[in-house]
């Protein structure tokens, strides 16, 4: 039985880590091993994009919180041109989507969780829209370049976790009214292809399949012992992995199709060391 940290919860990002490489799951989420890597520097192209992605998510949240477009615009004008283009497209899409998929009660950066297979499973949503007819649209902003085809997303664990957790935990946003899987739609929206959001409809069958799949996956992970998390055989996945030198794997140039999860692990945030000010003797 795996000895997980006391505050451990399963999420789409740690499950995805396990699926790609059990060792990465173990090092990052069980051992919580910090290991120097290029992405840490904040000066590579990948980290530049990750940061832009993070800023995008925060601004989208601010928009939902009611900060006016005018004020946001002044802010965006200080950002790189590529980002300005993202935002311009986003606003255009937003205005068009407002009467339909965005119509209703909007919740940005909301976390829901449920118990499954003896653990807690959490999902952090970029945007949830509860429509007046009590149907729900889950939005996920993807700042990956180039965009990924919808078929690739269908089997991505996020596509399973997000609607599944919402089916169980989402009633909290619906005044405790029951929700059926058929009421849920998930939309991936891409900065790189803003006018072709990928829409996935949820269903009872899919819910059942996801429940089985996720239960099985969590049971399998938690039932392993620490030696049972092998290195991935797909060495391409090591190209951008933070543990590449720890595992002694070679650097292979790959596209960053697997975007670093911006919602579960917001990267490069300054620390809250002022909160621990007491720990420092002046």
């Amino acid at each position: 039985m795996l000895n997980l940290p006391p505050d451990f919860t399963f999420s789409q990002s740690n499950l995805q880590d396990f699926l790609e490489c059990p060792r990465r799951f173990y090092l990052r989420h069980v051992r919580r091993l910090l290991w120097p890597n290029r992405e840490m520097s904040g000066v590579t192209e990948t980290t530049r994009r990750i940061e832009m992605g993070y800023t995008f998510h925060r601004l989208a949240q601010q928009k939902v919180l009611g900060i006016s477009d005018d004020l946001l615009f002044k802010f965006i004008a200080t950002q790189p041109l590529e980002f300005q283009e993202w935002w311009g497209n986003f606003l255009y899409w937003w205005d068009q989507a407002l009467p339909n998929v965005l119509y209703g009660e909007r919740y940005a950066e909301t976390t829901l969780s449920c118990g499954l297979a003896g653990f807690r499973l959490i999902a952090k949503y970029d945007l949830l829209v509860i429509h007046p007819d009590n149907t729900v649209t889950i939005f996920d902003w993807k700042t990956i370049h180039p965009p990924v085809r919808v078929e690739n997303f269908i089997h991505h664990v996020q596509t399973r976790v997000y609607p599944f957790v919402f089916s169980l935990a989402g009633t909290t946003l619906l005044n405790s009214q029951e929700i059926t899987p058929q009421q849920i739609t998930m939309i991936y929206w891409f900065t790189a292809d803003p006018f072709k959001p990928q829409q996935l409809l949820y269903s009872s069958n899919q819910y059942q399949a996801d429940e089985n799949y996720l239960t099985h996956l969590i049971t399998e992970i938690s039932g392993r012992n620490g030696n049972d998390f092998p290195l991935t055989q797909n060495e391409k996945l090591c190209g951008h992995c933070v543990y590449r030198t720890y595992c002694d794997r070679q650097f292979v140039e790959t596209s960053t199709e697997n975007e670093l999860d911006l919602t579960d692990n917001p990267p490069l945030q300054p620390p809250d060391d002022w909160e621990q000010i007491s720990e420092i003797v002046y």
Partner: protein
Amino acid sequence: MFSLTPEQNELVHLPLNTTVFLEGLAGSGKTTAAVQRILHLISNGIPAQHILILVPQRTLAQPYQQALSDPQLKPGGTVNILTIGGLARRLVEFFWQLVAGEAGFLQPEVPPTFLTLETAQYFMSKLVRPRLEKGYFASLSINPNRLYSQILDNLNKAAIIGRPHTEISQSLKSAWSGNPGQMRVYDDVQECAIAFRQFCFEHNLLDFSLQIEIFRSYLLSNPTCWSYLHNQYHYLIAENIEEDVPISHDFIRQWLPDLDSTLLVFDRGGGYRTFLGSDPVSACSLKTICQRTFQFEGTFINDLDFQNLIEIFQDSLNETPPSLPKTNLHTRFQTINQRFYPQVLDAITERIHDLVHQQGIPPQEIVVLAPYFNDSLRFALTKRLEDAHIPVRSHRPSRALREEPLIRAMLTLATLAHPLWDEMPPINKFDLAYTFFQIFAELDLVRAQLLVNSIFTEQNQEIQLASFEKIPPKNQERITFQIGERYEQFRLWLRDYVNQPSPELEIFLIRLFDELLTQPGFRFSQNERAGELVANLIESVQKFRRSMPLNFDLSPDECGQEYIRMVQEGVIAAQYLRSWQMEQTNTVLLAPAYTFLMTNHAVDVQIWLDIGSSGWYERLFQPLTHPYVLSRNWQSGKIWTADDEEKVSQQNLDRIVLGLLRRCRRMVWIGYSELGESGFEQRGQLLRAAQRTLETINQGVPNG
């Protein structure tokens, strides 16, 4: 289900819209009740996302985090757990555009930069140094780095009591009665504090004090921000409010009428963070605005005998006639007394060995506490315990990276790889030998020195490293060809690096780590501790670079050079903070007493070291600031006297000792030597109180 006392049960099941002030001593079951109250709220349909738990320090969040990760908990949203600083920071991020201009930032459209402790200290140094050269603070002999941090501390103190930062010197001066020269020092402090705040406004920088200031003065009066708070949170649980700062209490007072339900938890014996601005008096005043007050008496931790011991100790501290022991307390309170300090450590190790291996007490039920844990004490005790096969961890809350030998080696290599950097401390042969010793596997210090003596030449301050081939064969043999091969690998890597344009310092460090130090034959290969330290260093460099205002116009190379110089001079400590949760738990803990208290958990056995030290109760020497004067409880215009100093020392001692005893289940041992760690005879109030306690225990033992 937990079995709760009737009082706990009543509190947990109060109507959902009640505001409660819950007070009691440590161990009386307050946190347990608060945790159960939250679970009760959630199970009664309160959306978890509408609940906010406010804690003064993150270590105090643990019981809540644990309860809230229970898979049995109803599906739904998640409860937020924040400190007042964390909440302020979050709101500043969300609503920056709404308040930045009004608050006085000169570039409100540009994203703000949140400063860390060390980057704030760096900018403070930039402003203070030129003034030092002009004779500011001339009457003080104090390390400039402590000077910078105390000016920042003044800004923080002013912010958390909600007083303008322009009134710092006025407050400090009005309480001063000593050497009149100190008045000038306070004026200098004031000028630097104002200059720093101005600098932050000009460059969109936010240190802790400015985040709090923006939160208090602008965000809480902004309707959009307020409506966010109103919609987001309806239920507030504030834990250990006596350890929180007045601004946090003001916030609760302002917010409470808007909330559906509030539970404020107050430890009557607390206030350990007073030197950081926590204010039990202001916390207690919140009682009057709550509908219900609960007082939990009794303790779940101390049995009757131990409670008797606490009474006796309390009398000894107050020097009042002692309560009599009701039973034999010898096993509950003992001394480990030796003439010399190392003997005390040996004896402690023996006792712990006996506890763990003979009596079966789990290691995590034992803590060794001292007012401060310096490196030599930590090392000496850790080594002894490890040799005795006792798992041990020492909680070192923060530590300057440059004190780590591995990091010192990285810094030396960074200087070596950038020969064009000027005004850097020179690298001498010993530095380099020590660096080689740190990075080459299987190289001892003697051979490292031989290697350096053989390859190192310096001409016009330029260091040349000769190739291994050029070394006399006799030396090659002594150093070994295997080391020679590694040295060549290192030398060629360095040569290639130096011949290319310099990248950012982070990139240099990563390349050095990736391409060289983790290769076979180097000590960092698979070395997790080294990995963690270097990752922390890279993070610190990165934050430094990011906080640099654009108009400073530093090239990546200049920025790296500036960073290294500042670390070498100690302006930037490159502090790294570890999370408690990352640490092994089934171990004996060595920690400063205060750090242990702020985890708010109880253990079976406590061993107190250095009880002759005044560090248990005296405040740190801080000539530029004053935690008791920069407080709401200080009467303006009153002079701070020796009596006041003595009074707070006594108060600190009482708090800390009783706080520790209330968190101990079975026994306390006090370890002391006639001659302390530094070889002097031991005195001190705690030692006297402990001796009085022992005398009472001895006198009052029933016959036989």
